[in-house]
């Protein structure tokens, strides 16, 4: 399974995502500069965290105009797996591949911690190896992770089972319905604020991110026979 990690000016979790794919899956993974627009040679796309374009204007807003986003949209339409982590999630919202928008954390401060999450939906290509409603620990690190959507969108998200991760305990940013991650209706596009790539080895403090990458590979192998 071939992974692409688009790199925007200001991305800073790109290497971490690449390392995670290499270390957890041992699958081929390539950094792709944002000026490229063709992602047809890849089976999955990871939009990494960071501060693309300095998060100027709105976080994730300017990245949507990079040429590579054409490739990302195409990959999503073709049913390939697209995951946006942190700043990547913000990009997916700004592009409209996922509904809603991101606001500043309600306490107005950046928050970095290992956070307890509930896997609210395990029937996705990203979470199939977790138990439904399983408690997991994944690091968060963001200043604008306060997911917002109107009531109607929220109802739709719930009706179509699109809420994949929820914060457990104290909500670290004030997000609507404690949402930490959502997917599209087709479930091949996932956006999440927590960083699974930061929870793959014991010394990192948690290994709960491992199964997310393994789930993606399992899906890839079952659906495309790609290895």
């Amino acid at each position: 399974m071939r992974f692409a990690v688009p790199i925007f000016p200001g991305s800073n979790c790109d290497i971490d995502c690449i390392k995670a794919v290499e270390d957890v899956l041992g699958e081929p993974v390539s950094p792709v500069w944002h000026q490229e627009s063709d992602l047809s040679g890849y089976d999955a796309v990871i939009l990494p965290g960071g501060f693309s374009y300095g998060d100027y204007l709105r976080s994730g807003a300017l990245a949507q105009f990079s040429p590579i986003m054409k490739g990302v949209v195409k990959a999503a339409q073709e049913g390939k797996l697209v995951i946006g982590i942190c700043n990547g999630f913000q990009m997916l919202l700004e592009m409209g591949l996922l509904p809603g928008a991101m606001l500043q954390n309600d306490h107005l401060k950046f928050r970095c911690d290992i956070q307890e999450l509930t896997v609210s939906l395990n029937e996705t290509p990203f979470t199939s190896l977790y138990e439904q409603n399983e408690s997991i620990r994944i690091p968060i690190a963001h200043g604008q992770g306060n997911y917002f959507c109107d009531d109607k969108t929220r109802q739709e998200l719930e009706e179509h089972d699109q809420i994949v991760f929820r914060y457990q305990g104290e909500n670290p940013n004030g997000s609507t319905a404690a949402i930490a991650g959502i997917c599209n209706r087709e479930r091949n596009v996932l956006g999440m604020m927590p960083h699974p790539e930061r929870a793959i080895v014991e010394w990192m403090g948690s290994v709960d991110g491992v199964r997310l990458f393994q789930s993606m590979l399992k899906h890839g192998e079952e659906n495309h026979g790609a290895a």
Partner: protein
Amino acid sequence: MYKAIIDVTLKQSVLDPQGVAVKGSLHSLGYESVSDVRIGKRMEVILESVTLAEAERDIEEICKKVLSNPVIEDFSYQLEEVA
């Protein structure tokens, strides 16, 4: 040339935590008359458009597509001709 002065603010329905914090501070400073604070962004864009209509068309589109996120933000603008 035209200068557009654009205000982008959070929609009324969206909680503005920064505004809430500032309101709290103003209250504790004794400004009890302050009943609401909303914080937004002001941007200035210079357009080399020839006519006001052209400038309006462009700025409307720019505001919708780039400068604001319609899910959470409203925008308004003023256009003035500059030398």
